[in-house]
């Protein structure tokens, strides 16, 4: 458990968009996919996923439809919309810039000043 990192506020949406961009998923699937692509390092509280999913649908970034899961259960599948795809691109770029900036800031050594 201690190996897992807490999500920064605001990053859940980005992760969800990323997870869904790799193929349509139901809610539990999104959770598994995030765990998988983050190498089990990121902890998402299970229930907290759903407000984010509903919000993203409402914002038009995701679209949802009911279908059957691999275990033959009814489940709601989420898919990226065109806007969602665009938003994911922008957010990814933004995040990368931020990560690079923070990374370089944290890597700074006294002699480089």
């Amino acid at each position, binding site marked *: 458990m201690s190996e897992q990192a807490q999500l920064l506020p605001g990053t859940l949406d980005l992760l969800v968009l990323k997870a869904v961009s790799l193929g349509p998923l*139901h*809610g*539990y*699937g999104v959770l598994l996919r995030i765990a998988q692509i983050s190498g089990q390092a990121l902890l998402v*509280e*299970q*229930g*907290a996923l*759903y*407000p*984010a999913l*509903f*919000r993203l649908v*409402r914002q038009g970034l995701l679209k949802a439809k009911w279908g059957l*899961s691999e*275990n033959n*259960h*009814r*489940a*709601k599948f989420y898919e990226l919309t065109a806007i969602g795809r665009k938003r994911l691109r922008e957010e990814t770029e933004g995040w990368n810039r931020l990560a690079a900036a923070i990374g370089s800031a944290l890597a700074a050594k006294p002699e480089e000043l």
Partner: protein
Amino acid sequence: MSSYLRSVLARLLNRARVENDMDAEIRSHILHRAEDLVRSGMSPAEAERRARIEFGGQGRFKDEIRDAMGGGLLESLAQDVHFSLRVLRRSPGFTAVAVLTLALAIGANAVVFAVLDGIVLRPLNVPHPQDLFNIESRKGLVYMSYPDYADLRDRNRSFDGLAAFTLDQVTLDTGSGDPATVWAVDTSGNYFDVLRVQPYLGRFFHASDEHGINSAPYTVLSYTFWKNHFQADPNIAGRVIRLSRHPFTIIGVAPPDFYGAWSFFSPDLFLPFVNQEQLTGADMLHARATHSLMMTLGHLKAGVSTADAVADLDSIGAYLGRTYPRESTTTSFSLARPGLFGSFAGPAIRAFATGLMMLAGLILLAACANLGSLFAAHAADRARDIALRLSLGASPVRILRQLFTEAILISLAGGALGLWGSIQLLHILSVWKPVPRFPLVVPLGADERVYAAALVLAFLSGMLFAAIPARQAIRIDPYTVVKSGRAATGRQRWNAREVLVTAQIAICALLVTSSLVAVRGLAKSLRADFGFDPRNAMVMDTSFNQAGYRGRAVATMQDRMLKAVQAMPGVEAVGSIDVLPLYGGAPVSYVFPDETTELRASEATASAQTFKISPDYFHAAGTTLVGGRPFTSHDDQGSPGVAVINRNLAAKLFGSATRAGGRYFKLQDGTRLQVVGVVEDGKYVSLTESPAAALFLPVLQSPSMGTTLVIRSRSDPRQLAPALRSVMRNLDRALPVYIQTWEQAFDLVLFPSHVATYALGVLGALGAMLSVTGIFGVAAYSVSRRRKELGIRVALGAQRKEILNAALGRAFRLLATGSVAGLLFGILASRVLSNIVYQATPRDPLVLGSVAFTMLFLGLAAAWIPARRALSIDPLTLLRED
């Protein structure tokens, strides 16, 4: 409109869809997770349980989803309402008390306001009522003679026409045996034109229809009478009916809700005054000394002030006084609003209704204060809950909205309930016939305005009392609350609540005082000495003029009636009087000392109520003779004029009752009368009057048409009624009689006192209920706030008395302060009451004692449960709890 509805509907449907979606999706999630867990070796039941736990608090996430989906005002409102209902359902006691408190206050206000609106605020139901005035003498309401009225009408330059009327009972020949007695307004021909009323059907009579005595045999029906007696026959105009044996043509029907110039009396029909001779047997058109018109009224001309009009009238009055010094007794005038019987009853009714409205307003205020503290206590009980929500990141705005939604829900429920109750009550009032004999109506302003006002009032009170806990809630410091279990509230706010409760107790004490004063006054007036004794007596009204009796026939018939009734078994005594005391007042005579030669009204020693009685009247009425003798059958036309006077008049004329016997005095027409007896003082016009002069004349010497028999019974007087009726039928079938016990007849006299007593009693009970909840709230809150402290005291060995003092001392100090303040206000308020209720005074040990006892009792009742809670505190349990 329909598109708006559609969008609302769509949103509601959408909301339902989201809810379903949410539930299904969460179920699906837990199912998938549980299957994964089973695959990793867990038992299905355990896996299911585990999946649920991992998911976390569903309610919270659903709330977050709703928030995320929200945005729409309607959704979040529905959500707030949903949540509030849940909260309220969880504390049914609080909800019930709050709703009921508000319902009572709103209901009381709606009813009182409807009555106030009907009686006081709303002027007469005629066009342009604001410049309609009736003419009174400077001393108050006065009857006017027809010639004086005609002079005022023709000579004044201030009024746009002057109309006059008087009230009359006439016999309607129903064509089937017993004649019906109906109430008529005998009016001047211009009556409807002056009041600017249009007929509902047919036409009205006009001044142009009058051509001297008995020239206008027309009648206009009131709307109610037309509906009830003529089945709303649309072809009624032209039909001839017989009134007091004379034919009158129905020419029209007055509009609904037109009651003539009074707002509380519903007459059956309107007749031209010029035909009054046919109804009463006396020509009053030319009798300047007979003051037969009850009221004279008209619209002021545009631009004429009331002062101008009074000056104008006074100059005519001066002329009349000069020209007819003996007959025209009213020479200076004043103006009053006509609707409530002019200045006779208007000011008292207005003061009472306004006072009632103020009391009702105070009750609403008290209810708000109460609800404020109820809500505050409720909010304090939920402080932990609110603190938790705040610390979990709920926005203060959201929590405030929540509190306000709760308050508004309660206020709407309370308002609706109160309104429903008031509508029921108003309906009962509107069909209520307070005095069966008289067509009194209770004018009610019950319309949409009242209901809208009540709902707005409820809504505003809701906002007001929600504001108190709201202020408290947002100041909550989550940390302190979670730690100590109670919100640390400032000292000052608590004091503000104490002030509210004290004010409320004061209001309650005021109401209790007033209602007790009224009840006591009423009880006294049933037992007081009025100069006659209404117990064990029947009164029987007859109307000779309606039955066509004239001249000598009246006296003969009176004599036959008295003899026949006297012969009935069970009758102790029977007497006749022309007008029963307290039945609207008898004619007034100016009385002069024997030596006076200038018999001008201004020189009179006294103006005395003058009654014409048969020899045995005093015995039958239970009036005590102080000195001398009553009349005998020998005091007739053939013997010298005699009179019996009351103590008051004796004192005015001769200095004292003992010196009056055998002495002489004069009336204005020069008649010289010898005093043969003196009787005790009594009440003649109203119960609340101060002692007045009265003069009794033998009916054998001063014949009178008006005849009321007073029959004193040996046993229950009601048993006499059937026999009386058959005796009268044997004497003359056509003579209308009205038989009731004297106490029943007294209901009319006591009507105002009854109304005052009921109204105050109901308001007092309301106030008492509110006080109980108020004190209960304070005491309960105080005990639950100080449980820890009390527990420590118990642990340290405090006695029961000390615990009670610590827990409830403050509540009782508030009770004492409030009660004393309320009592003082009540004493002040009783001045208004004393105009309405006989001998209404709070300076009565019984009243004061009862108020103190009632308040103490209320306090004990309210503090009972909190006191038991305080005494049952067990320090050990308390320690374990936290």
